[in-house]
């Protein structure tokens, strides 16, 4: 008997991050844009609906044609918390999370980075940050960080 599985360097079953490449994901352009520092979503070319997360089927008019649009780089905290116990093993404590809201009313769940508990305030302005996903594939994940006075 062998135990090859446990020697695998990468175990998809244990991987919380999605596969981001074109050969795995119809929304691969989201990740390509993010790698360039742009946060994007899809816009239905038929009815103009702008969803989050991006979609390949419009929930409003059932069209499957869409274009990519940029979202604002800044948003405000709608609700937030910091988790200090029981976080999943690929994350570290303290783990800051927020629901943020853009000017256009769209909301998005996000991690908060480069932050402290003092920043955890409903209404606080935050801006896009892009993180690298560790591991064998080149992947990125979006996050937000508090806007600091310049």
């Amino acid at each position: 008997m062998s135990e090859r599985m446990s020697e695998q360097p990468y175990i998809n079953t244990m991987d919380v991050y999605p596969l981001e490449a074109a050969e795995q994901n119809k929304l691969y352009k989201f990740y390509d844009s993010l790698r360039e520092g742009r946060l994007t979503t899809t816009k239905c070319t038929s009815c103009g609906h702008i969803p989050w997360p991006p979609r390949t089927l419009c929930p409003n008019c059932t069209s499957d044609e869409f274009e990519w649009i940029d979202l604002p780089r800044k948003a405000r905290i709608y609700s937030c918390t910091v988790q200090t116990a029981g976080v999943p093993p690929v994350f570290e404590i303290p783990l800051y999370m927020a629901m943020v809201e853009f000017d256009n009313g769209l909301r998005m769940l996000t991690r908060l980075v480069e932050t402290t508990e003092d920043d955890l305030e409903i209404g606080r302005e935050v801006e896009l940050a892009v993180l690298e996903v560790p591991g064998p594939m080149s992947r990125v994940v979006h996050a937000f960080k508090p806007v600091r006075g310049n």
Partner: protein
Amino acid sequence: MEIRRVAVVAGGASKFGARQATYRDLISEAGKACYDSAPGLSPNDIEGFLLSTVMPERFVFQTHVAPLAAETLGVTPSKLVARVELLCASGSSAIRLAYGFIASGLADVIMVAGAEKMYTPNPAETVHHTLAAGDREWDAIHGLTAPPSFAMVAQRHMKEYGTTKEQLALVSVKNRRNGARNPIAQFRKPITVEEVYASKLVAKPLNLFDCCPITDGAAVIVLAAEHRVKDFTNEPIWIWGTGQAGGGNNAANVPGWAEWPRLRVAAKNAYQMAGVAPEDIDVAEVHDCFTISEIIEYEELGFCAKGEGGKFIEEGRSDYGGQVVVNPGGGLISRGHPFGATGIAQAIEMKQQLHGHAGDRQVPNAEIALTHNLSGFATEHTIMIYGREPK
């Protein structure tokens, strides 16, 4: 159209907790308790079988679990066999589907089992699995599991309605006190508000004792069409009404934070079908996955006005002697929350309460009962209303 009347005719659960038992051991234990609850019942009576369970694929490397569980319980289904999943509300969802199947006339007697084995050798691995519950590609990538989700809900409710940390803690104190009287409960020691505050901070404003635990457990009930009920029991509980409404899975699209509008829809449909109002409910098991949840549920179920959930617990109106006894069995916080078993355990508690078998946690003269089971980011809500008498 006239709908066939259906009742719960048997029910039993395993002990809930961190169990020295396999998934199948838990199912066996609950099955034993269910068969023992209705001496006229044998495996051969069961025509259909539904299993409510969430993640045996990850927790115990097993799928096709419905046939496995049926086999374990001696059941050879001739009319229905399937597994039902709706995360934390899988149990109530399975009961509703079994109800519909019997009500339609397609079967007369269906067993509904619920089970989850959540403890694994490495606790971190169990927590890791719960990342699969949210929208994995867009929410779980940020580390979102249940505690921070409901912490953010609590933040909004506290801001909008002035709900206090003490009011949250009082929910836990009540449910731990109730669970102390429930033989199957995971936690059987009452706690104080101070002990809630002193427990580890998990996700602000929720401390450890504001959260339901990780639990192993199973529960099994049997539903039967009216003409078969007497073959099994003199103490059935009857399904008077049910409602279910969903709002999606992605956190960004949650319809409401301090408000839970989809719960309102599910409740309205269930009350209407049952022909009762919130004030008619004598006893309820609601989904206190976190203390904040029970407070919002008081409001959205219509037990009190919107925003007054905190006051409702503070004034003892959800306790014995109050308006409606909520979570006499200890709720998820004290009984524990083996995902797939919870909705089934709620039904069993209601059966015991409506027939005076709840021991020293008995609610006097309970005739109409409600269960509420939620899933996801409080987006999906599933309600059952049971009566001691047929309606």
